């Protein structure tokens, strides 16, 4: 995932990781992972089963849900949103079969959005 590319908010992402619900503002998304901002610094962790809801912004009223296993690789302080927040890199390791198709749709929508800009 290229973390230096397109660091502006384009959608909302809500991670449901069992009891730990982590809400963030999504910046990047690719087949490899998701880059998002949170208000709290997170501790990196591996092999996390997750459910992520991706909505708003570029996606309008649609809500896309992907389920799988991933690694939270880093959580770095950033002032890019104007206030102190944390930029997180979440690496997707494995997705449920239908989530792969959903992720492909999400990436296609983002690519079309970029072309229109």
């Amino acid at each position, binding site marked *: 995932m290229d973390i230096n590319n397109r660091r502006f908010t384009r959608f909302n992402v809500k991670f449901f*990781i*069992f*009891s*730990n619900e*982590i809400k963030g503002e999504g910046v990047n998304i690719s087949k490899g992972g998701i880059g998002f901002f949170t208000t*709290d*610094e*997170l*501790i*990196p*962790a*591996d*092999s*996390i*089963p997750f459910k992520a809801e991706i909505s708003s912004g570029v996606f309008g009223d649609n809500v896309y849900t992907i389920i799988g296993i991933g*690694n*939270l*690789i*880093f*959580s770095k302080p950033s002032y890019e949103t104007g206030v102190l927040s944390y930029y997180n890199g979440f690496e997707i390791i494995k997705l449920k079969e239908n989530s792969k198709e959903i992720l492909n749709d999400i990436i296609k929508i983002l690519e079309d959005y970029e072309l229109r800009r």
Partner: protein
Amino acid sequence: MNLEDDISNIPENEIHFKIILIIDDILYVLKSITTILKEEGYFVLTAKSGQEALGLLNKYSPDLVTIDMKLPDISGLQLLEKINKLELKKKPKIIFISANYDKDEIQNILKQNVSNYLLKPFKKSKLIEVVKELIGNP
């Protein structure tokens, strides 16, 4: 000189700081937790395997130990059993770290001298809060 060399040169009765042993085989996790706890003022030792951890436990008798569920040479639970059998100068507080949300398993682990159970991923503030609650300030 590494951390272990630093501490091994200090006579035991002059050690007035809190020692924390972090056990995790994933380097970026180890590095992140170490940095955060060092910034708070704790003395941090790290181990990437169960065997390495047991050696450090015997040698330095840390105040607190964090154990990841999945280790390369032994499961976190097996390591916990071994730690409980060690005859240490002081019994360390233990934080178990896992991505497993099976309630029965969490209850089972908490019965085995585990002070706290953290579900991955968690906030930095949560880690500091739990550590201070268990062993106090550095």
